[in-house]
């Protein structure tokens, strides 16, 4: 059951991913999709909507027979989220679908709606008896970020869901965790011998996790204003990437074991005492991006002229454990930056002794291992190499690239495909649970509180890499941001 079918996310990501799964033969036979919205649609109208979004956004080629199989299970229920009658109709529709298609009575609720509506919908689901599962069948609920806007609101959101669903039936979608490269962080670290010995404060100088968008907020003014970059991205995506990069080796890849290690490392994360010195925030201003003129955040439609919402956020955090003591982790995210890129860069210390003339190594910077999450999913290793030639020894940075697109010819599955499939399979390692979400808020809350008291964010020119304060905060530690 999909709530919020008319939203961007449903149209561009969820419905195409469902088709792609069907096309790859990964959906169970008898899979049904019930849309729920306040529209006067018949089943056919909704099927047409799905069809259009699949044609436009699906990653795999359109095949008529796959579509026909999928279309047979598509239903639509028109109604208001507050109307109990609509939910009774929903129940009848689903039960009928169970009987017609043999779905074994397994139901998933995908809440692609603003979190403010969760209490209403969850209560309706419960009252209509939709949450009661017969023996051997499951009920699962899927929600999207934001998981609250601070620790207190996250906990009350948990409470709403926990009243109706068991903890392992709640799937919080963090689509970054569905990306191949993110999962590959664990594979590279724990399946190889050559990296893990270096993965500690003895060899690592600092770790930089960057998520940059080249676009502005687009049409999301209503969602974005008041939320800002830190809540939108650092709280979930970046802290999850940090956890995967910094956690200790789990005993096994059993979801419980992985989660335990992630929770352990998140619990050890601390923010600096002096938040002003070690964080930066900004708001994009009018400028040129990629040779195209763009407007500033305050000029975006729907944004109040006095908004103090940050569109760029950078923070330093530390991890107080034996492995990472003294290694700063720099997290930054922003909109309207130089280019669209997400990456985790492990920057190593400089060799303790360089037996070369100082002029030979002027162009040598620190070794780095970079996980490129998007685009160009892959891994880059940066190290020094001699420039070929007879005229002396000049050592310069070179890179060794591993690119997914090149090595795996089949287009790698879209993150949503993986996550939706995992929901159906009940396989939760990629989904953060309530405790991880709470721990992340515990990290971010002091920063957000301090920012709320410190006036306006710094303006930064669109198309660059953020405000001057971001460079200053990292320069205070004697380091620089790498150019992603």
């Amino acid at each position, binding site marked *: 059951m999909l709530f919020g079918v008319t939203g961007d996310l449903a149209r561009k990501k969820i419905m195409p991913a469902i088709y792609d799964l069907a096309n790859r033969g990964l959906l169970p036979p008898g899979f049904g999709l019930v849309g729920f919205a306040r529209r006067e649609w018949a089943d056919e109208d909704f099927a047409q909507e799905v069809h259009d979004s699949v044609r436009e956004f699906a990653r795999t080629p359109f095949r008529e027979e796959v579509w026909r199989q999928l279309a047979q299970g598509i239903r639509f229920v028109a109604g208001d989220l507050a109307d109990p009658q609509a939910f009774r109709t929903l129940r009848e529709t689903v039960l009928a679908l169970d009987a017609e298609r043999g779905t074994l009575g397994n139901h998933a609720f995908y809440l692609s709606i603003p979190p403010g509506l969760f209490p209403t919908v969850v209560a309706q689901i419960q009252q209509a008896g939709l949450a009661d599962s017969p023996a051997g069948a499951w009920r699962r609920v899927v929600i999207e970020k934001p998981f609250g806007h601070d620790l207190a609101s996250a906990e009350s959101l948990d409470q709403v869901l926990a009243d109706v669903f068991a903890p392992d039936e709640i799937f919080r979608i963090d689509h970054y965790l569905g990306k191949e490269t993110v999962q590959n962080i664990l594979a590279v670290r724990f399946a190889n011998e050559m990296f893990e010995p270096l993965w500690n404060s003895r060899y690592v100088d600092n770790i930089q996790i960057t998520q940059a968008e*080249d676009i502005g907020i687009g049409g999301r003014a209503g969602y974005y204003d008041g939320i800002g970059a830190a809540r939108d991205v650092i709280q979930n995506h970046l802290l999850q990437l940090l956890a995967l990069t910094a956690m200790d080796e789990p005993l096994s890849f059993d979801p419980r074991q992985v989660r335990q290690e992630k929770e352990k490392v998140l619990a050890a994360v601390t923010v600096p005492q002096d938040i002003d010195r070690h964080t930066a925030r900004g708001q994009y201003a009018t*400028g*040129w*991006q*990629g*040779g*195209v003129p763009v407007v500033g955040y305050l000029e975006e439609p729907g944004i109040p002229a006095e908004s103090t919402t940050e569109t760029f956020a950078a923070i330093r955090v530390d991890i107080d454990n034996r492995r990472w003591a003294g290694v700063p982790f720099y997290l930054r995210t922003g909109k309207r930056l*130089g*280019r*669209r*890129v997400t990456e985790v860069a492990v920057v190593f210390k400089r060799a303790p002794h360089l037996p070369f003339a100082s*002029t030979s190594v*002027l*162009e040598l910077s620190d070794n*780095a291992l*970079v996980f490129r999450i998007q*685009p*160009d999913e892959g891994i*880059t290793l*940066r190290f020094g190499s001699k*420039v*070929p*030639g007879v*005229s002396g020894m*000049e050592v*310069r*940075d*070179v*890179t*060794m*690239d591993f*690119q997914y*697109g*090149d*090595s795996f010819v089949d287009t790698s599955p879209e993150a949503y495909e993986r996550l939706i499939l995992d929901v159906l399979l009940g396989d939760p390692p990629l989904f953060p649970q309530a405790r991880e979400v709470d721990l992340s808020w515990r990290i971010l809350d002091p920063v957000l509180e301090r920012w709320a008291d410190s006036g306006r964010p710094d303006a930064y020119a669109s*198309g*660059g*890499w953020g405000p001057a304060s971001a460079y200053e905060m990292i320069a205070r530690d004697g380091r620089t941001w*790498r*150019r*992603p």
Partner: protein
Amino acid sequence: MIRLEDTSGHDIAAAIAQERHRMGSPTTGMVLTLLILTDETYQADATAAAVASAREHPMRILTLVPRPGGDTSRIDADISVGGDDGPGEVAVMRLRGDRSAHANSVVIPLLLPDTPVVAWWPGSTPVSLADDPIGSHAGRRITDVSTLPDPLAGLTIRRENYQPGDTDLSWTRLTGWRSTLAAVLDRPVGAVRSVVVNAPERNPSALLLAAWLAWALDVPARVATGPGPGLNSVALSTDEGSVELSRPDGSLGLLRIPGVPESPIALPRRALSDLIAEDLRRLTPDEIYAEALSALPRVEIT
């Protein structure tokens, strides 16, 4: 080649990535990004020279051609990746109308991560290279004052605004001359008292060579007019007589040292691609060039 019309830096970056994927997996990592800022006069030659030197230095070549004025305001790009011309990635971008003032914003999404950036102005240049928005990305900034209407005035501007990382192709053109002269001066030729360089009028390389010798030997240096092409000769007056390295035809040099048989020296005028390839071999500041620049006022021109 792919042609993108009315495009943006982001679309160009995406097109290069897509083309690279389409070609399979070129495993050569790019070692640097070369920014070429130029006009239509030098665009084709400069890009071709860079493409040729990409055999030695696999790189991303971004040629920016600002075309201010006119009614159209848009960016057009020609992109080619790999293939017969060498392993590099090339984008030639024409920035029309008001876009021409925003080359920097086009470049930012196209810079390769982690590797050095080099900027090259084959024609006219900003006054201070390192303070230029494009130049500020680059650790090495290459100019060519020989293409300017007044090369000697150009050299003066380079001298007055020098910052570590600057270099000029009229200096690179001297490498063969300098290494030969350095080898000669390692021999017992006696103390050098003065230096005369012969070249056509307004030859910036001649001036730099004289300045370099004036600084290195601490002697008076003079540039006299010769017929060309390029440098004709350099003569060092020593206590033992005159040491002369001459190149009358622009390719084969002749070395005369008192008491030693004459010997031919290959001193060909080199192609632009060779010069660029040489400059890209060293990306650290060229301190000797800086010394030669600052010794320019010591050179007498006759």
